[in-house]
């Protein structure tokens, strides 16, 4: 546990040096990495341990982005980010109360449905009330500010994941994932624990959305409520290993680098790589990259050696 904290501190310190060392393109790539580290780590805190597969990440991200767009000119930057987190968490509390009694596919589909509902509601509201669909963000913080904000959110997400794992709250989440009813008969107030865990995940997605909104300068519901953000978060967490601490972090970096380098030139190649990695990881590493141990590798090589010999 102490080793994890030291590793996080070293990684964060390394990342903090980046703006002084690299150019604009690399910095923008690093921001995409940090965004997905925040999204995938916080998703795993709740969904990885309880096995409630939420597809609502893009809803919370989008809510954060809109909260940011609406208040950017009136409020100080840290307050804008906190507000994005708070509004997303509040929506998650309501959404969680409505859908967290469902499990498995039903839960996944409903969270996706609610995401679409929120996106269309925002679109409708913008058309009817403000008379425009998109919003232009005229005055935005500089790249460095956004970078350090994202770094703080990502490091905060990993630190939160670490703290939750060793807490009673984390134990309750793990019990819900193992056997929800059994955990409840042993005294876990499951409804509360699930709703709070869901809101915690949403808060980080909202904060990330609030920070990223200013990167686009023009936002509309299609961009910030893009379901692909939610899907990619789930894929990253699953491929990395949603039950592990560092799996989602490693996978988030890997994917963001892949996405940014391939997507512009070869969008199909990126999607194919994503699909292929998911298939391989489900087949050979069902618990994700983070579950990879020396024994696993030895097992693979032993099997191969056995065939050769």
């Amino acid at each position: 546990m102490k080793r994890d904290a030291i590793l996080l501190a070293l990684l964060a310190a390394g990342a903090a040096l980046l703006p002084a060392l690299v150019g604009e393109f690399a910095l923008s790539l690093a921001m995409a990495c940090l965004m997905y580290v925040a999204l995938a780590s916080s998703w795993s805190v709740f969904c990885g341990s309880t096995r409630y597969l939420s597809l609502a990440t893009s809803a919370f991200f989008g809510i954060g982005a809109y909260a940011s767009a609406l208040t950017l000119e009136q409020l100080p930057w840290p307050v804008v980010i906190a507000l994005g987190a708070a509004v997303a968490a509040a929506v998650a509390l309501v959404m969680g109360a409505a859908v967290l009694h469902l499990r498995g596919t039903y839960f996944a589909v409903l969270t996706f449905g609610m995401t679409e509902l929120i996106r269309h509601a925002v679109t409708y509201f913008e058309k009817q009330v403000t008379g425009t669909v998109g919003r232009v963000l005229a005055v935005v913080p500089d790249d460095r500010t956004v970078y350090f904000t994202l770094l703080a959110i990502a490091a905060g997400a990993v630190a939160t994941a670490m703290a939750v794992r060793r807490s009673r709250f984390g134990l309750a989440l793990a019990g819900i994932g193992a056997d929800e009813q059994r955990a409840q008969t042993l005294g876990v107030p499951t409804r509360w624990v699930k709703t709070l865990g869901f809101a915690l995940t949403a808060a980080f997605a909202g904060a990330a959305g609030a920070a990223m909104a200013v990167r686009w300068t023009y936002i509309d519901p299609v961009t910030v409520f893009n379901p692909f953000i939610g899907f990619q978060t789930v894929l990253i967490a699953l491929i990395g290993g949603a039950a592990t601490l560092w799996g989602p972090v490693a996978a988030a970096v890997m994917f963001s680098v892949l996405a940014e380098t391939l997507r512009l030139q070869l969008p199909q190649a990126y999607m194919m790589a994503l699909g292929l990695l998911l298939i391989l990881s489900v087949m050979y590493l069902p618990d994700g990259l983070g579950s990879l141990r020396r024994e696993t590798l030895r097992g693979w090589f032993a099997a191969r050696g056995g065939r050769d010999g």
Partner: protein
Amino acid sequence: MAERLLDAREVTVRFGGLTAVDAVSATFDTGELVGIIGPNGAGKTTFFNAISGVIAPTAGALRMDGRDLAGQGPHRFAAQGVARTFQTPRVFAAMRVRDNVDFGLQFAGRHRAAAAPALADAGTILALIGLERHAALPAAAITPAQQRLLEIGMALATRPRLLLLDEVAAGLTEAEVEAMARLIGRLRGELGLAVVWIEHAVATLLRHVERVLVLHQGRKIADAAPAEVVRNPEVIDAYLGDEVLA
């Protein structure tokens, strides 16, 4: 003087058109060892589900300390000191044996004082159920008979007043059944728990309990000492053709 723990009044559970438990009333006091028997489908487990909060009764009251808990979740029952095991052991397979026991201590057991030194911590509970040597193994790695013991240990970790055991002796060998009966006797005697024990093997159960409830088609048809129950014509009728009571 025995204390009234649970007063179940006219508890009814309906699933659609089927009445699984039909207006069953029963009381359980501290230090009692009560058996529940009945043919297959008599509603034994459904009655347990109702009095442990796992399913909400369609009608009826479940009074504990003067409050009606009917309709509340299992965690509320656990907080009031009702603990249970499940027919098929539901241990946390990936967690270590010790952590399985510790789980209850972290939640319902945390807010309840240990009634006896044996419930002080995970170590003493493991010693009580005889699994201390397996403490570090994953729960998936121990035998089914040991998992049944672990289920009891998990329930004890909530520091209950009323312990509901659902077929904990099913599938055990003769010697294991006797050991289980001795353990249950100790839980009642040393810890002062009220124990309610469902068992399909009627003969075994009747040897060990001092009071037995007989359920038949969801209704309670007898509630008396074993010697009296086996002479009850309605009970004999319900079990007609079943040689266990003969």
